[in-house]
């Protein structure tokens, strides 16, 4: 019983082991095996159904009332096959969807698909990436879209300034307004566009503060 759905589980474990920002090589072999497993379950189900129909037809031919109810063992077997098909299908869809999300994330954060990641994609995924990139480009264009490069910021900026907090000891950084020392635990205020590269490489994190609880005077 433990063999049921094992391949699909392995597929997802392999993808998970590669971390959120990267892709595992597309495991075509395992996907093909899962499809064949689904076909096998399907074939088993069809065999049971055709057997039941054959018995029904024989009963009608003899003039007896055909049995409406199916015995327990047969019903359980059919349910098991059906659930296995659903499970394999679900895990495959999760696999495809997760890879798709990671490709989208790469388009937003890295703005291009690195060659190393491209080599790990199948043809359909490369096609998906290209179409997604084209759609996003159209949306950001001046003529047909918003006219802004939305991939410049990891989060929608609310202000020209942001407050960030150091996650690593990065020493002195030269900024447009002067120098700042980035140390673990220090809080720095700087322009949003200058904070972006530091946020992307994990040197700092964004600090989200209320602005004075909002002014309540009417």
């Amino acid at each position, binding site marked *: 019983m433990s063999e049921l759905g094992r391949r699909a589980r392995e597929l997802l474990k392999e993808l998970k082991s590669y971390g959120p920002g990267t892709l595992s090589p597309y495991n075509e072999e395992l996907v093909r095996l899962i499809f064949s497993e689904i076909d096998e379950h399907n074939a088993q189900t069809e065999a049971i159904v055709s057997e039941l129909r054959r018995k029904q037809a024989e009963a009608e031919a003899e003039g007896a009332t055909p049995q409406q109810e199916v015995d327990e063992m047969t019903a359980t077997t059919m349910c098991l096959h059906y659930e296995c098909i659903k499970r394999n299908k679900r895990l495959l869809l999760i696999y495809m969807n997760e890879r798709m999300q990671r490709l989208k994330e790469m388009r937003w954060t890295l703005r291009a698909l690195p060659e190393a990641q491209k080599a790990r994609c199948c043809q359909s995924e490369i096609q998906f990436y290209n179409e997604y990139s084209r759609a996003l480009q159209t949306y950001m264009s001046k003529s047909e879209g918003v006219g802004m490069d939305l991939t410049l910021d990891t989060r929608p900026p609310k202000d020209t300034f942001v407050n960030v*907090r150091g996650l690593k000891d990065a020493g*002195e950084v030269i900024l447009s307004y002067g120098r700042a020392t980035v140390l*673990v635990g220090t809080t720095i205020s700087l322009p949003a566009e200058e904070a972006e590269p530091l946020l992307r490489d994990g040197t700092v994190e964004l600090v989200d503060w209320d*602005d004075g609880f909002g002014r309540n005077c009417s």
Partner: protein
Amino acid sequence: MIVEAQYLLQVYGAIKNDCRGSEDQAVMCFAACTDADSVCASQQLLNLFNREGIYFTLIPVDSYEEVKAHCEPLVQAEEVKTVVLINCGATDDVRSLCELPDNVRIVIIDHHRPVWHGHNVEDDTNTLVLVDEDDPVPKASVPVYDPNEQEEDEEESGSEASEAEEDEEEDEEAGASGGGDEDEDDLGVGPGRKRRRRSTGAEQEERPAKRSPEARAQARAERRKRAELIDAYYSDCNGYGKPSSLLLFSLCNTAQHDDNFHLWCAIVGLTEQLLFHQISKQQYNTWREGLEQKTHVQADPQEELENEAANGLLNIPRQKVHVEPYDDLRLTLLRYWTIEESLRYTGYVAARLQTWRQKGLDNLRSLLTYMCIPLKHATTAYKGLREVYNSQLRTQLPRFAPQHMLAWDSLHLSSFRLLYKHEEISASDMVFALLGLLTDAKPKEKHWHRTAFNDASNALHVQRNLNTVEKGIDLAKRMCSDVVHECGLMITSGKVKGGRNADYRWVNVAESNGLANPRFTHPAVLKYMALFLRDATSHRYSSNDARRPMVVAGPPDEDGMCCVVAVHAKHISGNKLQKNPFARPFIETASALHIFQQKSAFENTTFHLRKEEVGPFLDRLQHVVREYTEEAKRLEQEAAA
């Protein structure tokens, strides 16, 4: 220069001008990470900077050595730069300590007293110390610094050999009776203190001709008088001034940036000082009344009407943060505990009823019985209690507390609370939440004090971080219960030294079970323990005059450093400074034992020593304090005669 509150806006304007006119436009801020007032003050200041588009870097620090290390890049700086120090820097010569040049302007907002009198120079606009007019130690109390004074001393002492000998003898006499600067120099105390230059023979030859004997005698008398004045200032003015967050709130008010957030920060800073006995209740009430008026100004009348209309049927969550005055019970974290636990772990109640003992718990339950609160409900979480028991507690406690040796006056206070959505947080709860976060020691993490400070800063922003407030409250509950249990054990097992008539009492936590608790290495927790031990030990003696100052030495931290703190004996009524008498004895004891602090705290009555130095320090301190006590008695007798 010491700057009064009326010039705060000008100081702020000067900071803005410095930033905009310089190539390096960022303001460097250092905030002491040992108390909630620093967290509140830093948030107010950074909020102001954010609104005005001023760049900054904030670094939480826990010693002057850390400030000095971070200021190293500025030593060679040529651009104009501003450094702001929050709750550090007032008591010492920070500029010399950090070797900062004059193009770096230092602005100090510090509630520690006394302010080093070297800051009181009228024409020094490069070092500004903000002190309000209603501070317990206002600017008028601080002796004016005379930079020429030292040169005059040397001219006088170097004129001729015999005159130099006479002068030295007289200087020694002045030193023995407690002369100011000379004594401090002779003690060779910590970094930043002035050092007297020794005159050489070559310099003596260059001295001007001697003055007449009368002129010399007059000059000596004036010097002696001034030395006594300075000595008296440093002896009598050790304590806390106005909270920095309250001072910054007046800046926000003047700059028309006052809102509920800045108001709440000021309230929390002020409440912390009351809870830790750093100001008197009268002083607290004086400042509280000013803040209460501001809460009425900040209230949104439209939202109040809507809430009143709806609250009859439903409890509508508030969408905006609302701060209002509130008569609170001084029961620690009552809303987050059960009634019994809150009573048991409130420092005042625990000290009086001795709740770490079975007899104390029985007394506590007797009090609950008198108040007609069944034990079953007293041990139910407060938030799940029916409203009837809350009102029962409030109506019956003033009636039955005195019968159980509890003063009602010490069990309630006029305070404030913050309301947001379904949450209600009182000012004292917020203080404890911030302290819980600040004192969450993680010895394995190198700069855990910065992480703790940042968590506490986030907790102030309740709209986004209510979960952080809850985490702080959980930590505070553990802190309070640990303190009561460990201190109770120390009292029962006789670890607290100093009897009924001792000059002071003391305890070394490293000799008890508290050794293993990393929380007990933090100065704020040790102060809380000291206050509890002071009150608990005084109640073991039946005399009215049994209260004594308390000295607590903490266990070693990850670097092998132990923190020693001291608290004063009695509350001084009126708007006066709550004087701590241990500043000078600590310095003298350290000097006598040639102990050099590797980590200088921002407060004069907090010392960091190596663990092998603690025993000799505590032993020697007894002799030093005895000398001070005998000297004080002698002076009293002379004055009476």
